[in-house]
């Protein structure tokens, strides 16, 4: 029987509530030191990504979020057996601990903004035509003609990106004062001005939602998408620090594990 992994939590205690995961199997925690890996048993690897399976996976993670800090694991993560899972936990223990501490009591929210890119470009072209911008005069030489066309396009693109930067700075002012961390994705497509994720203390959720309403009023010409709260998918940083444990750290960890069989789930399910 293989183990389907949902996430890592900041507790070695058993999950008290009955949670059912993929294939309707019961979800349980395999403890490792003071943290745990939440799994359910699965007969075979998931062959197809279905909407139902993805939602089942997500539902387990979000249920866990009600009581624990969770490091969500990618959909379709299957571990061969308990020994392999424990080896993985040992290998990443320090990373998991650092992330669980940093993300404790925090939630992720997403903000996406669409702007009218075509109209913005048109306005830039008009403004450049009016203004006294540096121009390359075309002549009959092919290379120069090519450069003239490219230079016109370059000026428009440069101005377009400068405008995007300006708008993003303004939008970010509304949100960043409530955020512990953020990641801003600029112009992933011509229209998608901003694709941002913010990490917040739970207590800041109301302020953050209010900020969203404010920006909508301040810039009604843009289109907005707000989502959350999510597990901190975008703020987990794995550097596999445990791979470079000092000798004394390894000894400490080994002591913890060998002194208490419960800590590695040897006596659990």
């Amino acid at each position, binding site marked *: 029987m293989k183990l389907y992994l949902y996430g890592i939590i900041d507790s070695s205690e058993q999950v008290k509530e009955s949670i059912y995961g993929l294939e309707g199997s019961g979800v349980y925690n395999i403890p490792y030191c003071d943290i745990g890996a939440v799994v359910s048993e699965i007969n075979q690897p998931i062959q197809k990504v279905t909407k139902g399976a993805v939602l089942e996976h997500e539902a387990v993670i979000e249920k866990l979020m009600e009581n624990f800090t969770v490091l969500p694991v990618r959909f379709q993560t299957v571990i061969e057996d308990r020994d392999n899972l424990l080896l993985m936990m040992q290998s990443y223990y320090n990373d998991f601990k650092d992330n669980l501490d940093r993300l404790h009591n925090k939630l992720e929210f997403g903000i996406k903004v669409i702007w009218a890119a075509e109209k913005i470009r048109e306005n830039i072209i008009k403004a450049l035509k009016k203004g006294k911008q540096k121009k390359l005069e075309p002549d009959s030489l092919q290379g120069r003609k090519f*450069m003239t066309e*490219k230079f016109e396009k370059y000026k428009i693109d440069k101005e377009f990106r400068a405008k995007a930067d300006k708008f993003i700075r303004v939008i970010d002012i509304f949100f960043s004062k409530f955020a512990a961390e953020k990641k801003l994705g600029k112009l992933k497509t011509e229209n998608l001005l901003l694709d941002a994720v913010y990490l917040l203390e739970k207590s800041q959720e109301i302020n953050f939602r209010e900020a969203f309403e404010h920006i909508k009023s301040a810039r009604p010409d843009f289109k907005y998408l707000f*989502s959350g709260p999510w597990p901190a998918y975008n703020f987990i940083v794995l550097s596999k620090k445990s791979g470079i444990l000092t000798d004394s750290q390894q000894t400490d960890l080994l002591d913890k594990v060998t002194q208490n069989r419960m800590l590695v789930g040897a006596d659990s399910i």
Partner: protein
Amino acid sequence: MIANTTVETESPEEFIEEIEKTQNCLPKKIDANPKTVEKGLAKLVLTLIELIKKLLEKQAMRRVEAGSLSDEQIENVGETLMKLEKKMDELKEIFGLKDEELNLNLGPLGDLM
């Protein structure tokens, strides 16, 4: 989704369209099965050439903007870039590749271009 997770927007179709655009053009893996290995490799090589071409173009534009290229240099650079673009167009046509396919997803670093 749990009870209090929400997705709020007044323009769901537009957001779906834009998100799909960001995902469709960038395969996570290089397509290298026996039938398509040639195209997969061509895509990889042409993506790198496209990156170099764009860097050259950008540098040339910056120098034009700064006024540090003579007329002769502008003509030479222009002709070179034009020929490079023409050759790239020919190769893209041979391997059935579109402009938006010439990119690589570098995971947490984002897209190459």
